[in-house]
């Protein structure tokens, strides 16, 4: 994975808000990305502190060829990380002229709002998830599902329901009330891959 500076075509960088109300949607992202056989990547894998964090984030994005950016958090307090990292993704796409050109997918919960909150992105229409896990799953299937036999929204929804239960158990085991840590993220992806393989959505 991402060795020798080469991007992994199946890796998907997640640029989303890390708050409690977003947890069901984040789990829906993990469930759907893993169910189509792609690899979710997140800044959660990167140390919170220390100089060079931005550089490490950019390096991680470069190991992916696709990123998902959820711009649905527009209230207070202002959240600048998502639009900032979207800017990084846009720059990656702009400066990559090879056949492996970077792609980014925009997510929003409210139709037509992005044209007001980020008018510079005119022409890039977001996929609307309406703040619902099934909306996120449908958006992922529509945007990064391949021509292979990718799963139905019902298949992914079933994985999501199991993964929600798993997340509660993991929180208890790790004695935390949030899924937004490296250890939780890794265990959730491990669980999702196991569930998806068990449902014969991806190979073991």
């Amino acid at each position: 994975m991402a060795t020798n500076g080469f991007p992994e075509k199946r890796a998907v960088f997640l640029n989303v808000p890390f708050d409690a109300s977003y947890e069901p949607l984040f789990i829906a992202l993990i469930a759907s990305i893993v169910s189509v056989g792609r690899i979710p990547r997140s800044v959660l894998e990167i140390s919170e502190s220390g100089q060079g964090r931005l550089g490490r984030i950019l390096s991680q994005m470069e190991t992916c060829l696709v990123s998902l950016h959820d711009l649905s958090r527009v209230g207070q307090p202002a959240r600048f990380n998502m639009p900032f990292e979207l800017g990084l993704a846009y720059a990656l796409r702009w400066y990559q002229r090879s056949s492996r050109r970077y792609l980014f997918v925009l997510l929003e919960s409210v139709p037509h709002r992005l044209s007001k909150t980020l008018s510079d992105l005119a022409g890039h229409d977001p996929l609307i998830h309406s703040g619902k896990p099934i909306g996120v799953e449908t958006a992922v299937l529509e945007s990064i599902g391949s021509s292979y036999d990718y799963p139905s929204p019902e298949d992914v929804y079933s994985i999501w329901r199991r993964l929600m239960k798993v997340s509660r158990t993991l929180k208890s085991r790790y004695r935390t009330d949030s899924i937004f840590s490296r250890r939780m993220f890794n265990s959730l992806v491990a669980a999702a891959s196991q569930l998806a393989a068990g449902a014969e959505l991806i190979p073991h």
Partner: protein
Amino acid sequence: MSKISPKVHKRRSRNSSPSRRSTPRTTSRQSSKAASKPAAPSSYRVTSSSSHRRLHIVSPSSASEIRDALGISESELKAALDAIESSE
């Protein structure tokens, strides 16, 4: 790229049936427009107006490949498997 899902294959076969087609496949204008369009790289598809809805077509990763890519530890995997078992 070599594999085409049965559903897609079936749909293509149905569309290609002459008995179901009431109009010409393409007009001459459409043909010339398509011919002038540069061919997309075989590894992905891209729409003109947005960076999404076009995707690198790749074979799915296996569960073990996904775990290896993230460097998931044995303890994290065990925690995941235990949590799956207890959630059943």
